[in-house]
């Protein structure tokens, strides 16, 4: 039994020894791979002409003096040249004619910037701005500034006790809302009309 435990421990210790050795080996391998990766990245930059003058001369020196760099450089250069030599795929002989027959049915669409009318954008922006400003003016005009005795006038406003229906049942508010709604509908109509015109133009 003791012998068994001893043997087991020894086996375990042995495994740990191997394991730590394995870890060290892995570290060496990963370090080597990282170095190789950096070397390849620098060489690709050199081949693509992306390195600066200083880096260029440093790599040229490394290629001349270091056998590993020289071998890797020639390998990558070979791959680079091969990639440049590859042929492009060719479509069928009728390709251009097919495209030209197809485009004969169409007209060049007007540039996006021309049919997205800036006036409409400004109009919509203005509509919302008028609404916000209108509501703010109306809201402020309803506040009784003199009644506030404290420093903070907002603390005097009891939101729960506010009579909201008073704001929205006023004739002026209703008129203001109606004008805004009509303005909005006019803008929408303008937009849809232009869109319809454009579609008609394309069909003709």
């Amino acid at each position, binding site marked *: 039994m003791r012998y068994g435990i001893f043997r087991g421990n020894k086996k375990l210790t042995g495994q740990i020894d191997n394991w730590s050795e394995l870890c060290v080996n892995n570290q060496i391998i990963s370090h080597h791979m990282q170095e190789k990766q950096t070397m390849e990245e620098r060489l690709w930059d050199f081949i693509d002409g992306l390195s600066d003058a200083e880096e260029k001369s440093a790599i040229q020196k490394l290629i001349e003096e270091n056998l590993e760099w020289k071998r890797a450089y020639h390998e990558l250069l070979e791959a680079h040249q091969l990639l440049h030599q590859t042929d492009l795929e060719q479509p069928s002989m009728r*390709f251009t004619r097919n495209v030209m027959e197809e485009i004969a049915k169409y007209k060049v669409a007007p540039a996006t910037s021309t049919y997205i009318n800036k006036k409409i954008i400004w109009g919509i922006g203005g509509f919302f701005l008028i609404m916000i400003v209108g509501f703010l003016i109306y809201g402020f005009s309803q506040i009784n500034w003199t009644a506030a005795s404290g420093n903070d006038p907002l603390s005097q406003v009891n939101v729960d006790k506010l009579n909201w229906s008073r704001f929205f049942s006023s004739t002026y508010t209703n008129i203001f809302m109606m004008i805004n709604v009509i303005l909005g509908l006019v803008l929408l109509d303008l937009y849809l009309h232009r869109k319809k015109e454009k579609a008609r133009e394309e069909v003709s």
Partner: protein
Amino acid sequence: MQGSLTDTEIISRVLKGEQPLFANLVERYQNYVFTLVLRFVEGREDAEELSQDIFVKAYRSLADFRGESKFSTWLYTIVRTSCITFLRKRKLDTTSIDNEKTYLQLESQESNFKANSIEAKSRQAMVNQAINLLSPGDAQLITLFYKGEQTLEEIGTIIGIDPNTVKVKLHRARQRLREKMEKYFSHEVRDIQGE
């Protein structure tokens, strides 16, 4: 005479109503567009149809080309969006073109390519086959950089990412391409290196 016109000159004349001149642009870029589409779409028929649609789209929105970039960069942006839309319509999961599902599909193709590797007689054919084994995202990056004559900044504009990220992605794509070449065309690669 018309062949010597620049892209911008052709575009301004097409916009003025000289529709037949658009054929020059089609001639000039059809191979680039078709190759890029083939990186996304399997089958030449589908790729050709989609390439035609791309040129029609480009023609229709030609007025939107403001000349801020090269025409090719603008066109490749249409290629990319059209391909992604096409794949979505095909009910393929294209949330990421580099996703696992795409890889799985490609992995299943690999055995066929391996069997046909003997047929890869020329270097170009071998590289093209290896590019086809990559994910569409990697294949597209390599094609744009090497064949589409696009800079890292321009590729960034097309894909919608930062040029530095493009650089990192391109580096990884080339690394994966070399792995594929070593895995499936080791014999041919040795022949090339031995020359």
